[in-house]
């Protein structure tokens, strides 16, 4: 196990059911375990099978996590453009929202946070698999926020999909495209 870090990161991942929001959060949480003493992942969703609002909160820290449930986070990643308005209140002043640009129609209303638009779905479709836009967004988040070394995520992808090579590869590719995109966006 690597040396444990000395900071706290929190992020809300949000979108509609069926988009891989919860899984992106889980990958992040499991990756964080390698570096942080305290990690929490809290999902929240409705009754509908698909298309209902859905979110998860991921926190990793070297200190006790008082509550895995928080009102607002440093970063909010919105996986469905149409939901920006719904989740805008959830970012801390001075924080950042990463939003999927496809479906995005809402205007940014608050001015106290930074908004970054990511064409995750476009990239995923260009790669031939719509379902992996969640990893594109995860990659972008990692590289823009520097939440943790990207190797930790890569490791987690291997742990998770190691036995199914094709799936592993396409997830890796999507994640790396996201990282790249983040690096370009960041500057």
């Amino acid at each position: 196990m690597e040396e444990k870090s000395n900071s706290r990161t929190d992020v809300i991942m949000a979108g509609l059911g069926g988009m891989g929001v919860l899984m992106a959060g889980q990958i992040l949480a499991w990756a964080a375990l390698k570096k942080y003493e305290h990690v929490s992942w809290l999902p929240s969703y409705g009754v509908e099978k698909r298309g209902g609002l859905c979110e998860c909160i991921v926190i990793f820290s070297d200190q006790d996590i008082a509550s895995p449930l928080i009102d607002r986070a440093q970063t909010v990643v919105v996986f469905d453009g149409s939901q920006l308005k719904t989740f805008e209140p959830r970012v801390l002043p001075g924080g950042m929202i990463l939003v999927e640009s496809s479906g995005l129609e809402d205007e940014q209303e608050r001015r106290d946070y930074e908004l970054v638009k990511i064409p995750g779905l476009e990239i995923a479709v260009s790669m031939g698999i719509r379902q992996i836009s969640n990893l594109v967004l995860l990659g972008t988040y990692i590289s823009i926020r520097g939440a943790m070394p990207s190797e930790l995520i890569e490791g987690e992808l291997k742990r998770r999909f190691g036995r199914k090579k094709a799936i592993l590869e396409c997830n890796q590719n999507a994640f790396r495209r996201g990282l790249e995109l983040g690096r370009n966006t960041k500057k």
Partner: protein
Amino acid sequence: MAEKMFVQGNEAVGWGALYCGCDGFFGYPITPQNEVTQWFAHEFPKRGKVFLQSQSEVGSINMLFGGAAAGFRVMTSTSGPGWGLMQETISHLVAAELPCVIVLVQRGGPGAGSIRHAQMDYITATRGGGQGGYKNIVLAPGSVQEVHDLIQLGFHLADKYRNPLVILTDGILGQVSESVEVKTIDFGPLDKKPWALRGRERQEDGKSRIVNSAVGVLPLPPYPNYISWLKHIEEKYREMEGSELRYEIYQAEGADLILVAYGYTSRVSKEAVNMARAEGHKVGMIRPITLWPFPYSVIREKAMLGCKFLVVEDSLGLLIDDVKIGVEGRADVHLVGILDRHIPTDGGMIMPGRVFEEIKRLL
């Protein structure tokens, strides 16, 4: 030998049970506890232990009645309507003095209510929802680690007192993943259940046993009649009250306002206390770990010092009655309850920000 794992609260139920020698799990599907049942379906049979899906929650709880009577460590888990269905037999379990563990992952009520989290079964858990008035020790974990730990303590206390025991969690604590140290906790020795049914020839004394819950109809040795047996049950309750009280006090020294909460809202409250302390307010928290017996004395002590109370409970107000009994009119008791939920997604939850707001209003 401890093992570190990142697991959901619902899965921690399973790991806790496995590591303290649970022999059998009997359950029926219901949201939001399905992960518990599924954990046992996957992990128990391959370890030679019993997992059985019952035909209903009435089935599950009566399977516990049989399994416990036969001397095994048995458990179930349920939620909402399933909890309602178990009430008759929980009362029989108390009357027949059969130890077992019932995990209640609370969802919204009344009725079928909501399939998501809530904290609305406090009264039925702490005062007995079935016939005839009885008590179960109720343990309320506040973290995934504590779910794992209290399941083990739960089996120990159930066996020690020959009484069913309730682990009261909620849909949020069931869903959240945290890292957990998984290991066997030693609580000391217990007798070998000399009262259990094993078949006469396996009894050490070669004598047959009866286990029943109708002591007023067919007297059970050693109790010559109904009233003498009731006296015994009552004495057992007094003993539990005397020995098993557990609670956590957080930042309550010299506080002007004390939050009282258990389960997921205790985490939310902790965050709110931190927020308040960060702004210099004297705010603390009392977290009952045993909901019955309840730490009335601790509450009373603080009330005498003149502080206010704020109960944070995802219900219309149930725990608050116990806090009121504790303060005996000496202090104001307020509630942040289910109607104060914030709605980030369907149904909503009580958020730290809302609690902090109320703290500021009250100070």
